[in-house]
């Protein structure tokens, strides 16, 4: 017995460490930071820039040569920011951004009294949403076509209003707590230790993991960048309002960026999926597909990308899928989320909502 003691002790230690690791990964939760903070500085910059552009335009009537130079210098948000930021933004849109800034923490007030809602649509002065259900590749796909007056209405929220590890809640529950008209699950940042987490203009995690990050800018545009190229703080300075670290990018400049067989490393087959895409500035599509059921097979990333391309999407990004894939519209879960073989919601770390 004594000669076996070292072997027994080692096995016990290995087992204990593995159990601890499993609990640490899947069970123990940790709250790192209270969420709810909103940084709308990028909208103020847009507003100022837009006013400057209008001034320049007025001056151009009398002094065209001088104005041209001003317009060129005024087309940048901040040093190092993207050129396209200032383009095509009306003073109405930027004003909506700052309007939304004041109403950002009180969503219910942003739902105008003149809002018209049905099972498949929602309209008010700032937001227009049309929900459609289609079937492609033997899979039910739910598409929410979203047009916003400002990107400030495209918001994100954490489960239990807390940024942390293993802090989860159902998408519908988080949506309800935030008075969301439309919500989809986010990137499930809580199960990753790295990858940028920028939400509502605030940097929660600035550790790069060498992956593509989806950036939604204050001007309502969307871009996929490498997190090796910019720090999270630089992205915010450049006008990033929301950033997600999941991926991969599905479409860039209207072209499919995933191969037919080159799936995301760990998911080779069809599955429920969640994706977000941009058709034009402040014109987005939220897409959720069913899967893992007898009615719906699910989509491969290539199929998802092709489908989004058919919608006219220019930039699209894959968010957390599988059991997490959920779309909530007007308080109702519209898709069929699958968890453990049953049709029910799974807790997630975060949502994207209107």
């Amino acid at each position, binding site marked *: 017995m004594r000669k076996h003691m070292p072997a027994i002790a080692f096995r016990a230690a290995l087992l204990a460490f593995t159990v601890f*690791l499993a609990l640490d*990964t899947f069970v123990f939760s940790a709250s790192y930071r209270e969420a709810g903070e909103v940084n709308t500085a990028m909208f103020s910059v847009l507003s100022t820039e837009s006013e400057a552009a209008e001034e320049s335009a007025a001056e151009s009537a009398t002094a065209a040569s001088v104005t041209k130079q001003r317009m060129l210098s005024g087309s940048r948000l901040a040093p190092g920011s993207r050129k396209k930021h200032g383009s095509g933004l009306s003073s109405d849109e930027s004003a909506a951004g700052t309007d939304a800034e004041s109403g950002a923490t009180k969503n219910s007030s942003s739902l105008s009294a003149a809002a018209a809602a049905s099972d498949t649509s929602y309209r008010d002065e700032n937001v227009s949403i049309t929900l459609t259900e289609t079937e492609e590749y033997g899979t039910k796909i739910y598409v929410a076509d979203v047009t916003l007056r400002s990107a400030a209405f495209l918001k994100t929220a954490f489960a239990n209003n807390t940024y942390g590890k293993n802090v989860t809640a159902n998408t519908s529950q988080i949506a309800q707590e935030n008075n969301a008209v439309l919500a989809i699950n986010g990137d499930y940042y809580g199960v990753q230790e790295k990858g940028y987490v920028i939400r509502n203009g605030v940097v929660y995690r600035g550790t790069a993991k060498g992956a593509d990050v989806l950036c939604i800018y204050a001007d309502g545009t969307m871009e996929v960048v490498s997190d090796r190229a910019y720090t999270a703080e630089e992205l915010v300075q450049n006008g990033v309002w929301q950033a997600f670290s999941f991926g991969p990018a599905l479409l860039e400049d209207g072209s499919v960026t995933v191969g037919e067989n080159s799936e995301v490393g760990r998911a*080779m087959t069809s599955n429920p999926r969640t994706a977000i895409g941009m058709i034009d500035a402040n014109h987005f599509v939220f897409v959720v597909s069913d899967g893992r059921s007898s009615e719906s097979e699910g989509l491969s990333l290539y199929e998802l990308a092709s489908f989004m391309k058919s919608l006219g999407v220019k930039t699209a990004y894959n968010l957390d899928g599988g059991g997490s894939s959920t779309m909530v519209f007007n308080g109702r879960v519209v898709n069929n989320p699958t968890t453990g073989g049953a049709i029910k919601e799974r807790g997630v770390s975060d949502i994207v909502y209107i």
Partner: protein
Amino acid sequence: MSTSEIRMKKFLLQQLAATLFFAFFGAVYEAFGHGVYSYFMIYAFAFPLLMGVLPAVMQLIRGKAFDRVFLFFWTAAIASFSVGSVFRGVLDIYGTTNSLVVVYPVVGGILVLCALSCLLLRSRRLAFPRH
């Protein structure tokens, strides 16, 4: 049958069982993984196979046996690598990470060094026997 031969056969059977267990476990886990896969899960069985079964068979064919202390460190290293590989596979398939998973290969590597040191010391003892 000598004690060392019994020890080697026991080691071989243990490693064979571990190989089959990890191969079966990985296959079942993958089958229920909705097509989400991990090479760490699929090939976890390779550690007991390559580090356990193959050397044991070779030693038995040659009619030689490993030292008891060497076998302790070597078996512990195989266990550390295999369990670490399976756990990494579970994390991959779930889509999560934990930086502490690096402990398995580090501990496994240290145990391999310990085992090889035992082997070296034993061979030196045999080369220079004490009178």
